[in-house]
């Protein structure tokens, strides 16, 4: 059904990659799942709860039955459910830890009901709340994976706080989900092309490229970039859509994932643009994949296409190209 790489790492797709197709109502949820299978871009299937499931985290028996039926029909494997740490859902005050534990517990129950073995959580939840959720995760048999996304990386202080808690708690139900956007080698060209097409001056874009490639803390670089743009008289209207790059694409070395691979429960295979020869431009997959293979990772990787934020390219085609690219590299390892 799919190109299965020789090594243990297994491929898949997150339906988040198909946000444009779904939001436009071109494909319903079941249509997306069937097309993922038909296009051979499983076997792993990842879903974002608040995107795909009406009433989430309440999952009706009807929906659970329908989902189970789709899985049986297509042969896909539920790999990960994206859950959210909506700390500021009440604009009047942030969630208390108790409220956050409850908010996450409901989503974990949804993951269990649908048969997802892993839930992707977000770092704003904080180590204290996640520590309290470890026994819940164990009871429900759903692993909690912290998504490590740009500008974070395995050695970032925010991530080290979770690593320290993990070391103390020692639960196999607490893990990590590296996002390859953290360890990119450049900003995808389509991003800058889209910004330029919407009126951002070329000089702002060239300055952004220059700052992105510099060493240094992304916060500091972003502040310096904004300051310099403003000093040069550029409008915030043009600066803000570009300054996102410091939070979307990180420059950490792919090898930095190695020390946490034993605790990885899933991977977000972030990808963007391809050269004509099939090489991905922003993420150096030839450098990334050996790190996980050598580290013995044998779980799933969701191909995650986020270019829908700035382009209308066909998500299915993009994912197929990513799978082909990754399979080819894996086959040569």
């Amino acid at each position: 059904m799919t190109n299965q790489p020789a090594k243990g790492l297994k491929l898949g797709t997150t339906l988040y990659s198909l946000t444009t197709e779904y939001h436009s109502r071109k494909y319903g949820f079941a249509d997306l799942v069937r097309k993922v299978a038909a296009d051979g871009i499983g076997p792993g299937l990842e879903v974002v709860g608040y995107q795909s499931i009406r009433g989430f985290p309440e999952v009706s028996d009807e929906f659970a039955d329908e989902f189970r039926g789709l899985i049986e029909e297509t042969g896909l494997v539920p790999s990960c459910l994206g859950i959210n740490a909506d700390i500021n859902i009440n604009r009047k005050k942030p969630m208390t830890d108790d409220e956050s534990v409850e908010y996450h517990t409901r989503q974990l129950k949804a993951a269990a009901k649908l048969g997802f073995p892993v839930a992707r959580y977000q770092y704003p939840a904080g180590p204290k709340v996640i520590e309290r959720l470890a026994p819940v995760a164990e009871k429900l048999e759903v692993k909690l994976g912290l998504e490590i996304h740009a500008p974070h990386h395995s050695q970032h202080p925010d991530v080290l706080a979770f690593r320290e808690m993990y070391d103390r708690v020692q639960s196999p139900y607490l893990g990590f989900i590296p996002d390859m956007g953290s360890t990119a080698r450049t900003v995808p060209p389509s991003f800058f092309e889209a910004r330029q097409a919407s009126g951002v001056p070329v000089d702002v874009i060239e300055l952004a490229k220059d700052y992105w490639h510099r060493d240094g803390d992304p916060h500091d670089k972003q502040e310096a970039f904004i300051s310099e743009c403003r000093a040069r008289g550029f409008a915030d209207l043009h600066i803000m859509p570009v300054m996102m790059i410091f939070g979307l694409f990180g420059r950490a070395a792919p090898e930095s994932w190695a020390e946490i691979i034993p605790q990885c429960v899933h991977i977000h295979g972030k990808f963007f643009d391809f050269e004509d020869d099939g090489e991905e431009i922003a993420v150096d997959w030839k450098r990334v994949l050996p790190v996980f293979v050598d580290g013995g990772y044998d779980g799933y990787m969701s191909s995650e296409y986020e270019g829908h934020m700035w382009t209308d390219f066909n998500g299915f085609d993009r994912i197929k190209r990513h799978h082909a690219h990754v399979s080819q590299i894996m086959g040569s390892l």
Partner: protein
Amino acid sequence: MERSEARLAQLLDRQVETYTLFQDSPILADEPMRTAHQAGQDGVALRIRLASYRALPLSCIENIELMIGGTRYPAEALTLFIGNVAYCPAETAHLFDRWWFILDHATVFVPTGSLGRGPHRVEIKLATVEPYITAGRFTFHHADARDLTVAEG
């Protein structure tokens, strides 16, 4: 991670200002507006959908405003119907347990009085906030515009 722009708020923890991101998004349904009557006022009802990748509670709808035929209607003037429940868009900050699913259209009543058949230029601005931001305020301003006719409701 989805909606990565929201992560920027983490980068903005040290900033004092609120940053905003403007983008064009499909919000207005491509169909005629309907004549309608609400709370003693004549106007039109039109269907809109959320410009977000995920469902949001009404507490994360920071602002809705419409411009129809050059006349501006701020949030206080509008009535928002989600699942047949009426809300004033200017008073939703506490509604963190009322959800708007992204595939569901909401209906907005606009007190335009009696509009002709048109077509009329309709512009909408929808401002939303991602709820997983831990500090600062990062607002996404979505905008959409269409020429819409009016049909009998």
